[in-house]
């Protein structure tokens, strides 16, 4: 009997020895410093990682496209969506300790919104939005990071209500520390170091040697990363739109713009340059968001392009961010397509040539619903947003009407992916592809 008890005790001890560490491994731990590398400016860029960590928005979107409370706990519309009232969350403090007030929110929104059609004011702990046109998608629109509530502290450093506070920035590295008083709760990691302006190759090298925990994996390297079994996390739907903007001021003839659009071969870009990781599109919204993307023809038609161009010999400049090698490659390929259709195209640096006839743009679609995403995309291309409507047919009509002007030629939708170090746990991506750093934890924390 005693012998049997000893056996059971031994087996139990063995099970405990095996199971306890396993349970301990899955439980998030506080502490550690997360190293992130990114190509863009982590604060100034609308989809910058540090921006999402420092600042909060009034609302938030989830993967399903639902709008959830953020700094605003509730909101209601009046006057057939011409007036919206958002109630601020109480007790929220900025990183410098001051309370979040309606005045601060109004100031931040006014600074961020130069082309908005609505007017904003603060009343008590509420924010009132009014507009001459109905704004059915305003709660979703306010979830965009461009409308994040931010301000500058006494030292001129960014100050917000996000889960991390700004510590310092030097040599392209932004140092953030955990905000213990965050209304969302303290993040698991103690600090985040964001290395900016790192090329994909540099990020890849740092990730390979374990120097970086989280790096961007551009679409053209995604396949290689998958083949090499690199731990990846990617968005379920593409969030980056690659498109060519055509200046209607410099090319006023819509037929010429259509000729340009018809000359562009999307398949070669998707199949070869982006290693079949992109989604060929001729619409502004991805099919996953709109459901009607397939209605827009995507195939190139050089013959028809030549017909529309006629005998005109026009020299065009295709502006591109030449610091981005893959965009440069895409621009050169598009220039080849256009030359094949009889256009004389030169690829130029967008920084050097501020007013090219054509511009290759890679824009980030943050909104999780079709109407807001279309609004966002049109705003990014400098167009006046359509009258907001959540009705899919109205959204389609608006997009179709906009694309008929041929001032924007959508090419590809690209996913956003990150290489994740094995020591990072519980990392999830927001619908727009931004990592939810506040919810992750690090494994080897002591």
């Amino acid at each position, binding site marked *: 009997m005693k012998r049997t008890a000893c056996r059971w005790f031994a087996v139990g001890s063995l099970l405990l020895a095996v199971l306890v560490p396993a349970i301990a491994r899955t439980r998030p731990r506080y502490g550690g410093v997360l190293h992130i590398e990114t190509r863009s400016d982590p604060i100034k860029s609308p989809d910058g990682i540090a921006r999402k960590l420092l600042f909060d928005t009034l609302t938030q979107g989830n993967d399903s496209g639902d709008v959830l409370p953020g700094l605003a706990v509730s909101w209601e519309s009046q006057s057939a969506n011409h007036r919206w009232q958002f109630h601020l969350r109480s007790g929220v403090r900025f990183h410098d300790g001051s309370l979040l007030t309606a005045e601060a929110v109004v100031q931040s929104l006014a600074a961020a919104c130069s082309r908005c059609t609505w007017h904003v004011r603060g009343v008590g702990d509420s924010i009132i939005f009014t507009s001459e046109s109905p704004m059915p998608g305003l709660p979703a629109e306010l979830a965009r990071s461009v409308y994040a509530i931010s301000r500058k502290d006494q030292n001129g450093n960014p100050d917000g209500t996000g889960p991390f506070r700004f510590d310092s920035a030097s040599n392209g590295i932004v140092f953030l520390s955990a905000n213990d008083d965050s209304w969302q709760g303290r993040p698991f990691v103690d600090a985040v170091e964001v290395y900016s302006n790192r090329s994909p190759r540099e990020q890849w090298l740092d990730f390979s040697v374990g120097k970086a925990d989280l790096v961007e994996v551009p679409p053209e390297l995604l*396949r290689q990363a998958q083949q090499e079994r690199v731990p990846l996390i990617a968005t379920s739907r593409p969030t980056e739109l690659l498109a060519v903007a055509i200046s209607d001021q410099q090319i006023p003839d819509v037929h010429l713009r259509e000729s340009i659009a018809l000359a562009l071969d999307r398949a070669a870009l998707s199949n070869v340059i982006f290693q079949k990781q992109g989604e060929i599109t001729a619409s502004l919204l991805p099919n996953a968001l709109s459901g009607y993307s397939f209605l827009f023809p995507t195939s190139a038609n050089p013959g028809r392009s030549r017909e529309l161009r006629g005998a005109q010999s026009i020299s065009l400049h295709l502006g591109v961010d030449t610091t981005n090698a893959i965009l440069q490659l895409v621009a*050169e390929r598009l220039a080849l397509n256009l030359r094949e259709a009889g256009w004389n195209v030169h690829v130029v640096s967008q920084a050097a040539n501020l007013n090219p006839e054509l511009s290759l743009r890679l824009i980030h679609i943050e909104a999780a619903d079709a109407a807001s995403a279309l609004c966002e995309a049109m705003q990014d291309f400098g167009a006046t947003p359509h009258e907001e409507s959540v009705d899919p047919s109205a959204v389609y009509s608006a997009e179709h009407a906009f694309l008929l002007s041929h001032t924007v030629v959508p090419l590809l939708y690209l996913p956003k992916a990150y290489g994740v170090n094995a020591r990072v746990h519980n990392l999830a991506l927001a619908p727009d592809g931004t990592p939810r750093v506040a919810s992750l934890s690090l494994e080897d924390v002591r």
Partner: protein
Amino acid sequence: MSLRQKLLLVFSLTVVLAVAAVAWIVSLRTRQAFTEADQKHTVALVNQFRHEFDGHALDVAAKIDQLAASDRLVRVAYELERPDADLSPYLAEAATLAKDYQLDYLEILLPDGSIVSSAQWPARFGYKEDVRYGGNQPTFLKKEDLSDGTSAIGLFALRTVRGVEPPIYVLGGKRLDHDFLANLAAAADTQVLLYPVLTPGFSPEQLVSSNANVETGARYSSIIEQARSSGQERHSLIYLTDRREDSVDATAMPLRAPDGNVLAVLLVANSRRGLVELLQHIRAIGYGVAGVGILLAIAASLWITSRISSPIEQLAAAAAEVAAGKWETQVEISSHDEVGELAESFNHMTRQLSEQRDRLVQSERVAAWRELARRLAHELKNPLFPLQLTVENLIRARDLPPAEFDDTFRESTATLTAEIANLKNVIARFSDFSKMPKPQLQEVNVREMVEKISALYAPARAQRNHRLLTSRGSAMRV
């Protein structure tokens, strides 16, 4: 111009011409010698450059051979041979391989020439290259269009990847640009230039050298155009600036594509600065020597002319003195040559002249005295004869009556007195012959006299611009 000046001029001119002729001949011969040496040097450089160029071509060929046989490319080729081959993973393959093999151009081509991967223009995937372009040549020149809209010339080699059928091609090469030129070993004073034929006309901006852009590119237009149009090697002397030392011996070599078109012109420009500076140095020395020679020649001429002309001048002066009546003039005999003999003859001549003159004077004097004596005798005879007759009458009248005697005596004494007076007069006139006539004082008008005298000299006064000033007062009588 005096004899001395003439002699000096003749001597100086002779020496100057002689020195100039010698200097010109030396300069000409030197230039010819150096030009020949320079041409040999240029030919050697061109040959050396050809050797270097061929070496680089072999290097390109060796790299492409090595690449075509590499396991990595063979693996890629086998992957590409699959029916459902996905080409996209190899988009950057050419760029990576080009970097590894230090090639400027590299393309991986499918059997139909479709580009799988291009190092120089990655966006050109799917477009086709002519895989028959190079023929069977191990290396060839090719004009390559680039992504920025420009074109460049490259030295290419085309190979098939080892052991793969149908063939997968690898087309690679090096760009013919300033880096390529910089890798070619060239002498310090030799510049290697390349003109890629990218446009129909000559464009000096396209001319590249191993170190920098060529500022004087337009100067090469002629030889480049000649080589380009003829397709043959051309040599020319080219002045890069107005200065002679900024000139080069240029050799233009057309570089042809497999189809025979001239794709580029290679220029080997051998600087003539050293040669020109050496020639200028020699010329400067020649001028210096000639100058010193001319000065020495002038000094020698002065000495020689003085040696020759001085006795002649003395003779001329002596002759002038003789002409002036100084017949006893003698010259110094300072040499024993012809001039000395001439001087001795001159002295002899003047001596004889003096002697003859003395003899002539003596004879004239004697003759004059004889004439004088004859005339004196004649003059004296005339009164003497009446005196003799009168005396004889008186002698005879002594016999006559006193009255008659008295008459006769009176007449005779009167006659005697008159004849004696006549004799005195004759003697007085002889005596006056050697005296100046006595001035006869009379009153004259001084002004008239001065004007009459000045009238005699009027032409001389007019010639010398002299004026006679006279007073308008009353005539002064003296």
